[in-house]
């Protein structure tokens, strides 16, 4: 009979649901003889029992020349669990759209089984391929072997975090620009900002090919680049008629249009495109009949973030339309302008969205040289007083 190595009654509970369990995966790794996975189970069980976390993070840990990509993690019970005394996380810059060959994944896993716990997270919330758990002294070797097979580390700390994007034109007909290419170009252009943290806090880029926003860019990134179009939605009336046999177009499509800019008379679908806000509802409901217009590009939104530290923020529109496939340099310039002012006046750990709220959108726009437009208004004003600047009155 094999000896039972561990007692993990609380962790075992987490294997009982219908879903895949991280506990099962850690046990598999431990069963293969991985000492850090064995101790990881031990310390987790103890944390659940004591209702206390046993991890510390941060400090001086990384690879030569880089300020990001490695998150230092240490255990405060190193004598009891030596296998996880150091358990650093490595963030690896994922390929745009998360496309890998199986050969590439095998090579990454081989490196990680050789040097680390063998445990991975495909993918972290920023998008990186995450390697979980290794000691400080192997970091340079892991880094070298990863770069030898064409990978690089991602961002962490107060830097540009690893940009991420949807699969865009690689698989999706709704893509209004090449989100994977732009994501790659931005990643390469901002290598210094990605690897050498110089900001008040993190900066996330996310690129979505259309307003469906499959990467949740509007809520999860400091700069969201979302595909859109300027002309009319393309309509195939014959295909609309086909849908009419199986879909209640009035109930499920036109009446659900947020601006009520659509009409259906039982035979023809009409759209007042001037009032379409590009929500994608009708296109998603009748994908064979409707598609985005032909004059495609992207909108740039700024200031979104998840709830950590301050509250959650949704991004606000800054640039309603840019031909981003051609004019990505304009995006670089806009970033540089914003980073200058945020870098100069931002508080430590203040995201750009919070900074803009603190200094006021008007002042921020003035500093970065962007003209205000009606689309930037987030909600109707609550203050009835309007102050005109003297020179504006004189200009008029």
């Amino acid at each position, binding site marked *: 009979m094999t000896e039972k190595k561990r007692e993990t009654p609380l962790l075992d509970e987490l294997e009982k649901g219908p879903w895949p369990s991280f506990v099962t995966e850690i046990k598999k790794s431990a069963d293969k003889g991985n000492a850090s996975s064995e101790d990881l189970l031990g310390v987790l069980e103890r944390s659940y029992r004591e209702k206390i976390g046993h991890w510390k993070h941060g*400090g*001086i840990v990384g690879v030569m020349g880089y300020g990001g990509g490695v998150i230092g993690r240490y255990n405060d019970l190193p004598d009891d669990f030596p296998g996880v005394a150091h358990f650093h996380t490595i963030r690896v810059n994922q390929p745009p759209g998360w496309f890998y060959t199986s050969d590439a994944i095998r090579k990454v896993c081989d490196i990680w089984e050789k040097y680390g716990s063998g445990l991975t997270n495909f993918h972290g919330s920023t998008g990186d391929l995450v390697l979980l758990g290794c000691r400080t002294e192997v970091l340079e070797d892991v880094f070298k072997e990863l770069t030898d097979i064409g990978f690089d580390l991602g961002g962490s700390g107060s830097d540009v975090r690893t940009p991420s994007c949807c699969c865009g034109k690689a698989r999706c007909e709704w893509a209004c620009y090449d989100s994977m290419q732009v994501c790659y170009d931005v990643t390469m252009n901002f290598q210094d900002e990605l690897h050498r943290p*110089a900001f008040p806090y993190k900066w996330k880029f996310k690129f979505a090919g259309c307003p469906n926003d499959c990467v949740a860019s509007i809520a999860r990134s400091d700069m969201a680049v979302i595909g859109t179009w300027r002309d009319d939605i393309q309509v195939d009336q014959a295909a609309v008629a086909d849908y009419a046999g199986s879909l209640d177009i009035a109930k499920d499509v036109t009446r659900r249009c947020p601006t009520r800019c659509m009409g259906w008379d039982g035979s023809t679908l009409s759209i007042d495109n001037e009032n379409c806000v590009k929500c994608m509802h009708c296109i998603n409901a009748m994908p064979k009949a409707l598609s985005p217009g032909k004059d495609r590009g992207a909108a740039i939104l700024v200031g979104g973030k998840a709830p950590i530290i301050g509250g959650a923020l949704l991004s606000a529109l800054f640039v309603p339309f840019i031909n981003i496939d051609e004019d990505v340099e304009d995006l670089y310039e806009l970033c540089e302008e914003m980073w200058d002012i945020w870098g100069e006046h931002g508080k430590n750990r203040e995201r750009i969205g919070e900074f803009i709220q603190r200094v006021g959108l008007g002042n921020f726009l003035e500093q970065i040289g962007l003209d205000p437009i009606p689309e930037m208004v987030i909600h109707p004003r609550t203050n009835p007083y309007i102050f005109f600047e003297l020179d504006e009155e004189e200009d008029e």
Partner: protein
Amino acid sequence: MSAKVEDVADAMFEMVKEYHGKKNLKALDLTKAMIKKFGDDECDKKLCKAAIRSLMDTGRTTYSYVGGSYIVLPPDK
């Protein structure tokens, strides 16, 4: 610009040494101090970026994360 990357890197390194154990410095603290020290006609943000990169690539300084990313002396120094 006439200041050299090495000169700015040296001046940054002296500052990191001087503040070691007293105050954590961010990249921007060093950049502002260098522009002040060398003058904005001699030194700009781009030059400071190159100087920080040189400090990191040569291992004279390293990054530390304590609720923010700071530039510090490596532990063995």
